[in-house]
């Protein structure tokens, strides 16, 4: 929580990297860098809180991916998972 706050308050955004959710290691904590794709995908992810800057725990990266976001478990299909660019979150 504090990480999100400091990131937004400092006003900078995480830079997009060429790593998507599908390649993130199990159990790792990652931060969403960018979400791209069709409007429906972006709106659906946005409604669930998968937006740039947010912290996730990766329970399973693919087939389908499962992430933990603020206590909720969210299943994400392959297409959607590869549209979410993430970066390692340093604790």
């Amino acid at each position: 929580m504090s990480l999100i706050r400091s990131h937004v308050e400092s006003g900078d955004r995480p830079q997009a990297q060429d790593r998507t959710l599908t390649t993130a290691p199990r159990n790792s904590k990652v931060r969403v860098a960018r979400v791209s794709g069709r409007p429906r995908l972006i709106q659906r992810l946005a409604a669930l809180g998968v937006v740039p800057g947010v912290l996730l725990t990766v329970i399973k990266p693919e087939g389908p991916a499962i992430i933990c976001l603020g206590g909720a478990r969210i299943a994400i299909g392959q297409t959607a998972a590869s549209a979410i660019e993430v970066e390692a979150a340093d604790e």
Partner: protein
Amino acid sequence: MSGTVAIAGCPNSGKTSLFNQLTGAKQKVGNWPGQTVDRYSGEFRSGGETFEIVDLPGTYGLVAVSAEEGIASRYLVDDRPDVVVTVVDASNLNGSLHLVAQIAEAGLNQVVALNMVDVADRRGIDIDEDVLGRALGVEVVRTVARKGQGTDELKAAVARAAGRTPTQLVIDYGGVVERHVGSLVESIAVRPGLAALGSPRWTALQLLAADVATRDRVAQLPGGHAVLEAAAADRDGIAAETGFEAAIELAEHRFNWISHLVADVSGPIEMEMTWSDQVDRVLTNKFLGIPIFLAVMWVVLRFTADATAPYLDWVDSTISGPVARWAVALLSAMSLDGGWVESMVVDGVLAGVGGVLVFVPVLFGLYLMLALLEDTGYMARAAAVMDRSMRAVGIPGKAFLPMMVGFGCTVPAIYATRTLDSSRDRLLTGLITPFMSCGARLPVYVLLASIFFAGDKSMVVFAMYVLGIAVAVLIGFLLSKTALREEDPAPFVMVLPEFRMPNARTVWILVRQRTASFIKGAGTTILIASMAVWLLLALPVTGDGSFADTDVEDSAFGVVAKGFAPTLAPLGFGEWEQSGALLSGFVAKEVVVSTMAQLYAVDGAVAEESTNGFVDDVGDIATSFVAAGRDTLLAIPRVIGFDFLDLEDESQSELQTAVRTSFEDSSGGKGQLAALAFMVFVLLYTPCMAAVGAFRQEFGTRWMWVSVLGQAAIAWIGAFIVFQGGSLLGLG
């Protein structure tokens, strides 16, 4: 009625449980305008006033991703209920508050039900509802809907809120977005035609988020198009200035606001791995997920078929036995027995009523299993597992369930399409499900296969099942590329509900409502079709029979069968007995074999006369009901067994000889090919009038005709390919 209340919430937030608690058993089921989505409503009393309460479809937010999700946002903006009860999953505040925040931003009168506080407590999440309520400007009530806790407090809170003037929540979206919101609000505010939309700020935010429901609404109002153009320019402006789409910018700031709020009301939430995460990894595993799903489906199907079969027999024998005798006795008391009235009552009305009721045990069993799968949380995992491979051929992941159910019976399979998310997905699945070979088609395959393919009987029957799947997948693929093409398919993203014990009350209400809906909805169609067939059989057209006392060959039925028999000649089965059997198969596939027996006049058995009195009959009905219960219990262990292709050999030698001769004659000596073509036709044409009734209830009359005629065409083509193709290859 002194107020309307809408109940909103994310899927799996316990919204339906809470709705059931508030209304009790008295609920009305209707449809949302222009949608085949059930609209549940009911009433409750609080503070001396009666409130009408409507259950909105589950949604994660007010920006609609599918047409169904648009229902909630459209209803809230257009109908402006007096109070909105928003159900929040206390164990997932982050995810749930998005909807709450949006409803507060829309300036609606809101009460928040902080549900599942017991789960939150267990996870060590301690929520200060006063802080939460102050931040949102709403009253917050703690509830555990599954146990009925907090319901009375919630009712009282609704009564208090009803007279209140709502406060509009304003979230700061940061300099860039706020500048564009400001200019868009101005262009909305200067147009009096848009006043009906309510808060201009909320309308502006929804337009910037590219909400389809709001866009459509604005487009209909005077001055709307200019505002839509301005909104598009503002969206582009935000994207250019921030590097992110406006929808993302809005969501990012809103969630940032929410995460601050959550930190204030509950402290930081630890993301800890739990045992259920381990279970989820196994259930959705790339290699294990599908086998586990198939195993679960196997149990569901066997339960639906085996455990309900004794009750099905009981319903059938009760109606055709004692009930029919009572009806005849009643008619003879009125001196109406023996004539066409008796025939109409027994063969038309009672046969039709029986045709409806005979499905009730099967549907009840299926709905019970489905409700259990949904309520435990497994259904969401199954959808996640199946989505990818099914989507690859253009069929939604959740379609797998109705398709599997279709192996048992097409009628419940059509209703099982309700578990899908969008009307497009439901329709596509409804159109392909009838190709899955249902249990009633099996006797036809068995009869013909044992006559013409004695050595490879099981192989031929199995091939029919495989062919059914192949046709279903092919048609699904073609539909998804043509008539039901999707430009922007709904992505698979869903919150996994927590695993839990099913709640008896929730399951019972669901099962009862769905079963009642079948009796009311499809019952009429089945009854009408049954009467129509009786009338065809009763009308003498040729010969010297009289009304309701004529040979089948001379009846209107026989004439119709003869009329379309030539169209089946290219398929190798153009004799009127064969077309007549197919015609009766439209009523129910169960009767194809018995109709053949009747038409070839080999079954001389007369229905046995009973001399039972009324008391004996009632006694028999009760005993046989108890026996059905015992058989069900005995059948449950067998559910895990594997006697799916248990082909019984009954002594049908006389019928077999007649059928063999008939198929050899009709096909010019290629009996095997003609029989195979006949089986393919039975597999692919309309399953039965009950399925048609179910289809019409779910998808409307127009699509019903598309389905019926399409299946007939596909069956004809399939049988043509088998017979003519086989002849060309020199087979048979």
